[in-house]
């Protein structure tokens, strides 16, 4: 992989980090999208898609509403994709085992992203106070610049978050790659399947509409029948 590819990877992480809260929110930050594009940039789109699929549903019910901060599944998915792509270099050669490690890693570190989010939003309180001062002193032209500084804070936090996750991931992968290969090779397909299934359980348990279980079983039955008849 070239330096250009890694620069693109970093740029994509930055865009996704901004999309989460600060800019536009067209949902390129979802793990399914973020991981697939990160994988494509590194030449492993299929790995990215598989990881995005596994991670997408895990925190889908954690809504970014009001002051609630959901885990940073965006940077976790992007970092996990990069680590899965590089895993063979450190002895984790089985692709499924590498993906299982990446999913377990992302699940463990995504809640750490809440810390970064909290720090940015606390830092932005200072911008709010500076804006109030600017109004008091009639320097109103400063207001837009102060707001844009907030966007910059979110951008810096995204990249720092990615860097921290990479350091943590490499600290696990470099000394433990061969051991992870041994431990994860057999149960990897089950770990990769349990992740989205657990997300589905969480979503169905949370939906408060008429007969969620009936609807779920109907969908399950239709698909299973189709698979059997195929």
């Amino acid at each position, binding site marked *: 992989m070239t330096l250009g590819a890694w620069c693109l990877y970093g740029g994509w992480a930055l865009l996704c980090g901004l999309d989460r809260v600060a800019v536009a929110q*067209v949902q390129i930050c979802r793990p399914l999208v973020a991981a697939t594009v990160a994988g494509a940039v590194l030449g492993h789109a299929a790995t990215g898609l598989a990881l995005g*699929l596994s991670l997408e549903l895990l925190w889908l019910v954690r809504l970014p509403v009001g*002051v609630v901060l959901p885990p940073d599944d965006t940077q976790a998915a992007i970092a996990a994709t990069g680590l899965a792509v590089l895993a063979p270099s450190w002895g984790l050669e089985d692709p499924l085992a590498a993906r299982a490690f990446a999913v377990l890693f992302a699940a463990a570190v995504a809640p750490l992203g809440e810390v970064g989010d909290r720090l940015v939003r606390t830092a932005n309180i200072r911008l709010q106070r500076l*804006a109030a001062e600017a109004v008091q002193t009639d320097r109103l032209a400063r207001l837009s610049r102060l707001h844009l500084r907030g966007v910059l804070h979110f951008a810096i936090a995204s990249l720092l978050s990615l860097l921290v996750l990479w350091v943590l991931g490499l600290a696990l992968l470099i000394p433990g790659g061969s051991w992870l290969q041994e431990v994860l090779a057999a*149960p990897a397909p089950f770990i990769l399947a349990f992740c989205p299934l657990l997300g589905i359980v969480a979503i169905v348990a949370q939906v408060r*509409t008429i007969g969620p279980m009936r609807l779920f079983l109907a969908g399950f039955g239709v698909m299973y029948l189709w698979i059997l008849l195929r």
Partner: protein
Amino acid sequence: MDTPALVAASAPRLSLWERVVVWLRLLLLQGSWNFETLQGQGVLFALWPTLRRHCAPRHLRKAVQGYLGYFNTNPFLAPALVGALLRLEEDRWCEQEGMGLEPRQFADMVMAPYAAVGDAFFWGGLRPLLVAVVLLPALWGWIWSPLLFVLLFAAARLTVGIVGFHQGYRLGLASVQALQRWRLSDAAIWAKRGTVFLLGGVAAWILAALVQQAQAAHAWSLAAFPAGMLGAWLLRRRWRIELVFWLLALLLVGAHEVMKGR
């Protein structure tokens, strides 16, 4: 029938370009999101060019101060609210009487209901539905499914944003009633039903693929059911989902190590 006071007062007075600038700036509504005023600075950032240009200098500071406080609504319905705010501001600049409601009072009244409706529809309804729609093609290995998700969500987000903003600006206070007619709360319920149905299909596909993938270990696949039940039970007891996932993964690895030892 609409009462005369709720009918739009007059034709638009701001130029199309001025309105486009406000709408584009709303894409950065949450740019300086903070724990004290949430989106407070974002609304001011969006309105600033028009306030600076049209507000009488003696009123400008007061108008700016009004928007510097707490503001929180759903980011996708914010254009509808800000469009109406713009109309009320415009009426104030032209010293027209609306319903005696200051723009800031209007914002305080409607931001929470808009947040509730928008969050339920976009976060609770549309986003999970679109994820469920693209998951099946993604499971079949269709690499473009993430792009389809982004296109569908962006189309909905931009349509609601553009139409809402236009409607808000055109109708002013009456835009609240117009928004009610969109029936977003009902749409959210239908979206949730569709999501649950589609996720049933996704679960069936994942289990079938698992059985196929691990042909030598059908018994392992059966472990998915008790594991799912355990997961559901722990989630109901408010365990964090990542902890439940790690616990299940450790049980799997442990069971495999035990079987390998035999």
